[in-house]
């Protein structure tokens, strides 16, 4: 199963091709409230993977026949920009996009207080502007922060990362090369740093033991993402009180 252009090895001298350790993330960059029009927005980067999320609502719900008298209705749309991959992606709905939209929506809905806004619609948009694997995870992190920015009540932040298996070694945060030529890709989404998995998708072949190890590694990764997300929010909305105290 040698694909065209496959590198001979994905692990050289105990390091991955980009020099990372097995449990190391690519550089992560987070921006909250970076769009002016959306009710809430945030962007999230894992290295070269760049996701932008925007939230509109709660707003009036249409179509009326889908309106829920007891809770908010959520729509979530995950798309990849045509220029996000080396080969241009034709714009429009894709089956992959539909599936990722669904699982992303379900992960986010697990923490939203939907009953607080009956009869309304919450629109979540996730756009991948640059793709280097782990796109749905970046999108989920961005959407979670966008929900906070939009003032939509949630139980906790959602944290998401990927785990893979390359050259038989389990690794954190799969990049494009590793996704294409590696053995396994697993996307995980969790509630904060709690033992609660809200998104889990895997393809490749793993043993039962692999599964436990990968779930554990994912949890460690998500805990780190949790700290970064919390920092991004408190940095953005510093009240200046600490600064004031220092002056005195």
């Amino acid at each position, binding site marked *: 199963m040698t694909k065209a252009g496959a590198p001979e090895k994905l692990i050289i001298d105990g390091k991955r091709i980009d020099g990372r350790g097995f449990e190391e993330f690519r550089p992560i960059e987070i921006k909250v409230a970076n769009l002016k029009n959306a009710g809430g927005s945030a962007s999230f980067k894992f290295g070269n993977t760049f996701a932008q999320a925007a939230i509109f609502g709660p707003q009036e719900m249409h179509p009326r026949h889908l309106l829920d008298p007891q809770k908010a209705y959520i729509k979530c749309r995950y798309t990849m920009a045509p220029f996000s991959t080396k080969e241009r992606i034709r714009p429009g709905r894709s089956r992959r996009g539909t599936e990722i939209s669904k699982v992303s929506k379900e992960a986010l809905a697990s923490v939203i*207080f939907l009953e607080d806004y009956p009869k309304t619609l919450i629109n979540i948009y996730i756009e991948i502007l640059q793709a280097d694997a782990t796109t749905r995870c970046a999108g989920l992190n961005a959407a979670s922060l966008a929900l*906070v920015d*939009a003032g939509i009540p949630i139980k906790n932040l959602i944290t998401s990362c990927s785990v893979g298996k390359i050259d038989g070694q389990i690794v954190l945060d799969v990049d494009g090369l590793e996704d294409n030529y590696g053995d396994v890709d697993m996307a995980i989404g969790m509630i904060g740093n709690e033992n609660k998995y809200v998104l889990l998708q895997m393809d490749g072949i793993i043993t039962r033991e692999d599964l436990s190890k990968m779930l554990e590694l994912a949890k460690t990764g998500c805990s780190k993402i949790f700290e970064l997300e919390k920092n991004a929010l408190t940095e953005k909305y510093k009240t200046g*009180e600490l600064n004031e105290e220092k002056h005195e």
Partner: protein
Amino acid sequence: MESELFVNERELVIPGQTLAKGLDYLPSSGCFRDNNEVKAKLLGLVRLKDRFVSIVPLAGVYIPKPGDGVIGFVKDMQTSLWVIDINSPYDSIMLLGQAVDEYIDLNKTDISMFYDIGDVIYAKVLSVSKSKSVHLTMNDYRARKLIGGRIMKITPSKVPRLIGREGSMIEMIKDKTKTQIIVGQNGIVWLKGEKEALAVKAVLTIENESHTVGLTDRISELLEKESE
């Protein structure tokens, strides 16, 4: 089981953050109970009152409450009622009887003579039913049609900051800019006057920095500097 409070008044908290533990503390607006803990469900500033812990959010849409004064836009009409957009996911209705005192013969009168589509009004929220059916009334001394001027939108939860303690902030802006300003609880602000632009700038500054300390002084400075 011991109760403990982990946050101070006006502290910035994020959703999921534990604010208190034990049954002595009760979750109010913006908070929820998770087993033994009171947690925030919104990003905002902590407010403590007796045993109640609540959050003043930094963002969010307007949810109508009875008694609120709101600025709305007439968006539709039927024979004896108006549909008013109050900047909320929930539309509101104003019945003829809540807007007009005199007897009206509906066979001879089109209600657009009182309020027409596109009109801006300041009204009071009369009632909000459990199914989120919102009714407005003009039966309030402040209620009227707003003519001319301009409209701004701010985050509804920042309205108290814009108004200030006992109206101090808004009066300062009105005074220094010689502008009439009406602030709706729904985040809509109507301005009309001499130095409208300066008033708008002050309002925008409050919108962006409402959560910070020392805001009142900064607004005062801004108004002094630019009124010269």
